[in-house]
């Protein structure tokens, strides 16, 4: 009886749990304890730290006390916050990230900190200094990255929902590979204050959830202008919960650049099935050209590493974190950073430093910024004709652990479809579209800035029609 009741509580979506709590049929504290116990026994490597107990949350708080898994990239006062890096081992920030604070205030207390690629640089979670994360669908495979811990935790039912960060696909791609929902908001919709920076002009915090409604509910309480973040904006209106069940009159554009060459056949098959489903729901799908998106990845791998190279200069062994060296200042810097950073982080620092260095700025950084302009123009033109852009989220399903670690470029390619939206600063969601060889395939819907309500509505209709019921942890 007790076991059945707890299974039932754990099977609830977050929104359903909030309703139960509001009705007095469940308490946030109970739910927290259930998840706390489950997460404490996990063996995926999803969590790096767990809260001891839930904070007191009033039952009428909008999010009722439904606990939240938080990517370790968010600073939380007094709680180890490492961004998956050895260089921040033992670091306990003196302040808390705005997004975490807002969600806690709305009634989503932190369950724990989730594993991630070091400084959010990676697409497989294999770049964590604290070990990889296994994909709950197949433990030999990666969960995607960089929010791999958050995605795996939600997919495995270790947490009802989670937040992650998306710089060039880091929420959407792991959501896709783990068979859950991941939303990358419009740049500026959610405060970045307290999010350990990777690439400041691209980083954005987003929800990873079991379904579209949960994504909308969590997103509603994350948004808003923050006086601590000059690049944040007021959200135009309260985010509604999605209700659409049909797609009548909704126009979708499928760009050949992101739906053809380089996409795995199994992924394309699911994508084409979803295309048909959209038409069955009354939507229209047409091809729409986004000619410069083919160059998105190249521009991204200039801009993101360039910003990262500066953002990571603060890790110097002086004020916090680890320190190495033999007593002179140069060795303090060079050895702290050599020992503290992993291979991928070093690669990006090298790439970014090179791209900004004297004599190369225009050829790399300057051109990449102009490509960014062209990509944003492509989207603007597309949204004159269609409401939403439709693509696969990632060119492939979850790949095997270790399969791509020796070839950085092949790893980078898993964000090929996600990066253009990041460069344009527009919102995009990944929802499960079906399975390919027993592994989830994500479908991406993108819209103009601040069109999240429209995206969520369309995703909601599509989600119901697709009927994806993947819950690997129940198997």
């Amino acid at each position, binding site marked *: 009886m007790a076991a059945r009741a707890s299974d039932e509580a754990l099977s609830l979506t977050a929104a359903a749990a909030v309703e139960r709590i509001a009705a007095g049929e469940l308490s946030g504290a109970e739910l927290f304890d259930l998840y706390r116990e489950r997460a404490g026994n996990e063996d995926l490597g999803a969590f790096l730290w767990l809260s001891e107990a839930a904070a007191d949350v009033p039952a009428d708080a909008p999010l009722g006390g439904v606990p939240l898994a938080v990517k370790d990239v*968010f*600073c939380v006062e007094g709680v180890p*916050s490492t*961004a998956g890096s050895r260089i*921040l081992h033992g*670091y306990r*920030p*003196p*302040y808390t*990230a705005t997004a975490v604070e807002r969600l806690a205030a709305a009634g989503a207390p932190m369950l724990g900190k989730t594993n991630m690629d070091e400084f959010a640089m990676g697409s497989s979670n294999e770049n964590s200094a604290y070990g990889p994360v296994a994909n709950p669908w197949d433990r030999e495979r990666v969960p995607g990255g960089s929010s791999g811990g958050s995605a795996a935790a939600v997919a495995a039912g270790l947490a009802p929902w989670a937040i992650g960060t998306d710089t060039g696909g880091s929420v959407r791609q792991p959501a896709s590979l783990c068979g859950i929902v991941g939303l990358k908001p419009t740049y500026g919709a959610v405060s*970045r*204050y*307290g*999010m*350990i*920076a990777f*690439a*400041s*002009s691209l980083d954005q915090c987003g929800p990873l959830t079991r379904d579209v409604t949960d994504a909308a509910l969590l997103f509603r309480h994350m948004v808003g202008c923050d*006086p*601590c*973040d*000059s*690049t944040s904006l007021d959200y135009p209106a309260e985010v509604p919960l999605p209700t659409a069940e049909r797609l009548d009159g909704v126009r979708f554009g499928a760009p050949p650049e992101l739906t053809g060459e380089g996409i795995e056949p199994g992924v394309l098959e699911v994508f084409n099935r979803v295309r048909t489903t959209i038409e069955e729901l009354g939507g229209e799908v047409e091809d729409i050209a986004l000619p410069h998106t083919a160059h998105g990845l190249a521009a991204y791998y200039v801009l993101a590493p*360039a*910003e990262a*190279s*500066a953002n*990571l*200069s*603060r890790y*110097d062994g*002086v*004020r*916090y974190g680890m320190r190495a060296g033999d*007593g*002179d*200042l140069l060795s303090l*810097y060079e050895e702290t950073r050599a020992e503290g950073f992993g291979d991928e982080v070093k690669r990006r620092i090298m790439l970014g*430093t090179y791209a*900004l*260095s*004297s004599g190369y*700025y225009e050829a790399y*950084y300057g051109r990449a910024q102009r490509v960014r302009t062209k990509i944003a123009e492509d989207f603007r033109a597309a949204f004159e004709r269609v409401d939403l852009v439709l693509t696969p989220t990632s060119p492939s399903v979850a790949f095997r652990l270790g399969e791509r670690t020796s070839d950085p470029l092949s790893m980078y390619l898993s964000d090929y479809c996600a990066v253009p939206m990041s460069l344009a600063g527009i919102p995009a969601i990944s929802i499960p579209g079906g399975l390919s060889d027993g592994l989830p395939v994500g479908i991406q819907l993108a819209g103009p800035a601040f069109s999240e309500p429209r995206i969520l509505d369309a995703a909601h209709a599509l989600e119901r029609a697709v009927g994806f019921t993947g819950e690997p942890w129940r198997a």
Partner: protein
Amino acid sequence: MPEPVADRPYEPVIGLEIHVQLATRTKMFCGCALSFGEEPNTRTCPVCLGHPGVLPTVNAQAVHFALMIGLALGCEIAPRSLFHRKNYFYPDLPKGYQISQYDVPLARNGALGDVRIHRVHLEEDAAKLVHAGASGRIHGAAGSVVDFNRGGTPLVEIVTEPDLRSAAEASEWLRLLRATLRRMGVSDVNMEEGSLRCDANVSIRPAGEATLGTKAELKNMNSFRFLQRGIDAEIARQEQVVRGGGTVTQETLHFDPVTGDISSLRSKEEAHDYRYFPEPDLVPLAPTEAMLSRADDALPELPAARAERLERDLELAPETARLLAFRGELGDFFEAAVAAANGGGDGAVAGPRALASWVTVELVPRLGDTEPTESPVTPEALAKLAGMVSAKAVSQSAAKQVLDVMAIDGGDPEALIVERGLGMAAADELGAIVDGAIEQNAAAVEQIRSGNEKAIGAIVGAVMRETKGRADGGEVQRMIRQRLTVDG
């Protein structure tokens, strides 16, 4: 055919780079209060310590002050300017980059006096690195300690064109700039305390040539005297290098004011490559009409304009006008005294020139280090005293004695004169004293009568001694002559 270079005189070419700490309440990019000698690291927060995840936010007052400076220096204000990151590693730089402005500064193309302003931009100050010495050894190595209190203080950097031609000119111009900034209230402009810091770019070229020589950068001269001596020493050093057949290399130099030596400040193990790029955590500054007019409205009359006005309207000597204009508080005191004199009405009043002299020649030495606003002497009282002198109610020398008293205890000059019996001797009293002096100086009277005019001095002296200075020397002379003529 040009002369051999070695024989031609050289002309120094000097440009200045000035960093001005702004007198805001908080730091440039965080809410920490500015530090004034507090215990180390008591004015810090996650933002100015460069913790992971923090973001900068721009101080509105710093922007306002920077706009005021841009306008005061006659610059064009950029319709849209950007912050950039200037990347380098140093322990006093917590983020590994300084947020500064690069290719689009807030203001450019202005002038102050004869010197053109190249650019004016906003940035953040570095922290303070304290060399701890033996007592602060860390793990056996000689260590330093970083204090982040100053880190993040708002700075305006002002860069001039190379329009200065001597150390004296540079120092004189810097005084004008300092007076201007001080008048605007945007900074404490204290060189000793580092709220005004000056670097000089110095090069030399054969006189008459238009192209610029290779410049050396002299760092952080923290007083006018050091600035002048440092530039002079650097000019001499460069001349020596060039006359010896060498070439000047571009480098950063440190002037030691104690020994007068100039040494290279950095070892150039690597060329600097700051990898500037637009700061993605901040949005552009695009001053609105409202921001610009608010900055413009906040500008007081600036020293250069004030000196001109005092010279033109009040007919002060140029030197006096500049002194009053460059020391704004003194100028304010002077103008208040002029207003009091004009409003006084009854009797003779002191004119502006006389008042200026009372302020600059008499009051200034009696002030010592205090500002005129803190002196017990009020502008009204000084105007009254000067007016009494003009009205011959008190002699010049007696009035100076009165001012001595006022400078310590304040008080009303008229009351002081009465109380101390320092008023002009009345006509009948003075007549009696003159008669007595003529009687007692028969020899001098004899000499005057035989044509030695100068001998009158002895009799005047006797009268002044007797009256303790309460008589007007000219009036006494007139009375003596009158008596000797009438008698003879």
